[in-house]
């Protein structure tokens, strides 16, 4: 419980937001996975360059799609927060 109080998952309103800490967790996990995979060096480059380097294209597409989805998701959250505020007024 101590850890939860220390991180920023408590919103200014004091409400606990599980989604937020969940997101941090996922990002950290991804970064760690990426780091550990890249630590193994050669193997990874061989995999990514196999079958005519098709995985480079896969990586590029994934980067674009993930980034766009995250961005849209954030806009969506912003809008729903605004909607809530309108309802309350």
């Amino acid at each position, binding site marked *: 419980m101590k850890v939860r109080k220390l991180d920023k998952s408590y919103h200014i309103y004091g409400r606990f937001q599980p989604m937020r800490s969940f997101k941090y967790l996922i990002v950290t996990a991804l970064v760690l996975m990426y780091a550990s995979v890249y630590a193994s060096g050669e193997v990874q*480059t061989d995999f*990514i*360059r196999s*079958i*005519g*380097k*098709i995985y*480079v*294209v896969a*990586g*590029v*597409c994934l*980067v*674009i799609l993930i*980034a*766009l989805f995250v*961005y*849209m998701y954030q*806009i969506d959250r*912003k*809008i729903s927060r*605004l909607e809530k505020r309108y309802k309350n007024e």
Partner: protein
Amino acid sequence: MILLLYVFIAGWLVPLKPGIIQVTPERAEAGQIVELEVTGYNSNYTKDQGEVRAWLRLAGDTVIQAREVQVMDDRHLTCSFYIPSAFPVRQEAYPLSLILDHTSDGTSVLPNALFITPAKVQDENEAALWFSDKVTSVHEQSGIRFPFRNILSETIRNTYFHVPLWFAMIILFGVSAWYSLQYYRGGQIDLDRKTVALVKVGLLFGVLGLVTGMLWAKNTWNAYWSWDVKQNMSAIALLIYAAMMVMRASLEDDMQKARLTAGYNMFAFALLIPLLFIIPRMTDSLHPGSGGNPAFGGEDLDNTMRMVFYPAVIGFILLGLWISQLVYRTEKLK
């Protein structure tokens, strides 16, 4: 959306033309018979086995034809050449390109496939074995396929994802510069919101363009960042726009924010043009069209690729405008 869906499907599913991945050995001495083992990509060598022809090209149309071509399987064949001990030109080493022609696969080329070191004993008469042949009567691959480029291979598909992002970014920044100009003429705060929404999405696209470019570069140019002019200049351009967002965040007064942003934004766009269009054209670059116009022609972007590339450009531009509309509306709701 439909355009982008089409781009993602076609960009992924259309196969590449057959190509040559590898040739062993890579080096040989002149005046000997060389057995080349050829590894193909997407090739169908076993179809019409007797019809495969092979040449080694020295320069221009100076070639020698293979004495024998033997097909092992769809992806492998061996061809034997007698490399003449004398060459029409005198060099320290002779890089030769391998050309293959197949009835259904069409022609494929591997540049600098074989390096020849000069023979110790040279028979000048053998220079006549090289003959001038434009390598005509070759076959054309039929069907819809993307070109096979040697270092790029499948990553040529990135042309549909990496390049349109930059096109879209330039359009977004351009439209935002237009709104800034309108703000100076009219002064409605609403125009400022439009400007900022466009710049935000433009920045997102720009950063995505950089990241995808780095991933692509790591696997083709062997480094995430090779200090290429275009890489540097686009990074500078993005930093200029990022600095604008920082400046906005540091200001309290909304009117002041809008006024400074409008001025800054127009200058930023004016800087973007030399940074992205002029400076990269003046020096050497790893990007296509080094020191000249981007090579939107030939093998880098043939007509099959255009069928996917132009919809991709339009699709990404529309996507960018749509997202910035959403951003603008949310800002306005606030």
